[in-house]
């Protein structure tokens, strides 16, 4: 890539033209790795790059519900967990800041059923501002924003249980 062509390299893009040197390729491959991509193809002005990685994920995540599809207990969690991890990675890649549950309990979006929710998608929040309540052991725990920013996603469902580490909110920090 020439200097005059310098462009920001976004998560899944890579603008370039003409020649490519080792350093650029190294960066590309690192990006690939970082983003967990399995294949990358680029073709621009006579330049064509194709990079592939072995798909990871071995057996454990392939656990099927024991006893076949119909019978037996479901073991859905690990695949859910894997999906969650993947989703989280994407969110983080987007520059979102995640608020996860620091405890096990019941998630409430409002201080009481009659009140409006603490926050909604699109709201600008300040660090320290209450986002929700998690009830655990009969205690109401206020969960606060730990950054300034905008709420871009709300994952918890009102009055539903949440476990430790479960995503509650995505916030796009104001920079």
């Amino acid at each position, binding site marked *: 890539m020439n200097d005059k062509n310098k462009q920001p390299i976004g998560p899944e893009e890579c603008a370039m033209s003409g020649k490519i040197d080792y350093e650029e390729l190294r960066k590309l491959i690192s990006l690939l790795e970082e983003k967990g991509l399995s294949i990358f193809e680029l073709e621009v002005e006579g330049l064509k790059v194709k990079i592939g990685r072995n798909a990871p994920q071995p*057996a*454990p995540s392939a*656990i099927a519900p*024991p*006893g*076949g*599809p119909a*019978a*037996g207990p479901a*073991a859905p969690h690990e695949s859910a967990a894997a999906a969650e991890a993947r989703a989280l990675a994407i969110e983080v890649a987007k520059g979102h800041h995640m608020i996860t549950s620091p405890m096990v309990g019941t998630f409430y979006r409002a201080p009481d059923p009659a009140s409006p929710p603490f926050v909604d998608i699109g709201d600008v929040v300040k660090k320290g501002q209450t986002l929700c309540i998690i009830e655990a052991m009969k205690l109401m725990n206020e969960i606060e924003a730990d950054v300034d920013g905008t709420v871009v996603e709300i994952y918890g469902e009102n009055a539903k249980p949440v476990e430790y580490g479960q995503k509650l909110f995505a916030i796009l920090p104001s920079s």
Partner: protein
Amino acid sequence: MISKILIANRGEIALRIVRSARELGIKTVAVYSEADRQALHVLLADERVCIGPAKASESYLNIANILSAVDITRADAIHPGYGFLAENAKFAEICQAHGLIFIGPPPSIIRLMGDKNKARQTMKKAGLPILPGSDTVIEDLAIAKKIAAKIGFPVIIKAAAGGGGKGMRICRSSSQLEDQFPIAQGEAKAAFNDPSLYIEKYVSGARHIEIQIVGDRKGKVIAFGERECSVQRKYQKLIEETPSPFIDEKTRRKMMKEVEDAASKVGYQSLGTFEFLVDENRKFYFMEANARVQVEHPITEMVYGINLIKAQIRIASGEKFGFPFELVMRGHAIECRINAEDPATFVPSPGKIDFLVLPGGEGIRVDSAAYGGWVVPPDYDSLVAKIIAYAPNRDLAIRKMRAALEMTTIVGIKTNIPLHLDILSNTDFLAGRYNTQFMDGHMAAKAAEETL
């Protein structure tokens, strides 16, 4: 006496023999086909020799190569397992001529039991009740019709050399007999190279009950409490249990006593199984005897606290043997045969097992040569694991089996675990109300249910 056993078999029974031999301090040689290079019994035996390509006739049935493997490994005994050469009297004779200890009954016994009609007649003389039928093999339809008329319909025609349901036909009338007789002859010829048939009274609603025996070299025979094997599909056993929920103590004692007497009369040695049909009034009729270890032998081991393979090896080696505990049945054992097959269509499902979690813990025994990463070859039978549940009573054993199967995880191939779970929840099965027609009825009921 025996220092090295060559195992002329594969799969779980080969591994079972490796384990027992190892406990006895005896070395083992695995012989294997090219399809079984990565098989667990091959990897875990002390030595291993490739004896041919995947096709059984060129490897596991290849007597020349098996005996050459004996020569180059200097094994002094052969264990034939079940299937393949296990009931081949000629093979047993060749082994003996070769100076080898054949771990099984004498060739004469294998030969007798291999001729189903002769076995029936011999056992009748030795005191076992048999169903009314032809005393000799029948090659002619006219004679078949005469005999059928005498014993009364329904009758069943069977191949004299038979097994596994091949050449077997139920006939409810003379015209059916006319139709079926030549078909059965053709099947028997194709399957066993012997078109001889025999006829006997057909008992509907009967149970398949069998008695395990062990005979020593002094003519002493011990019979064990019955195994109930009526859960069958196309004469293939699926679930076995002991004791049978149907047999009472009086019938049990009678069966055991009569089998012991008859088996000693014919000089039975080593392991064997006497199969009976038992009618609704608990009258039992000898059907055939299998001169080998049976797939379902573990359930007998569980309720008696014994090891039949070790006993078999020790008898073959001429050792004095005995069982350490008083031979009393205690508790209840069930075995489920886990096959690599579609649970609905029964189509075999060979292939790679990507991920495997077998059950374990209190009361669970697993006899299997499967492992995560293993490729189930398409060349042999589809048995991948025998799961055995043992508990103080039948209800607890069924619950334990269900819990074990629900927690068994096999990814990559289809198995019949869903079918087993289905049977283990069936009201009739739970009540112990089932016979050899159970699976037909069960499958039909399920099909009807799914159509609704």
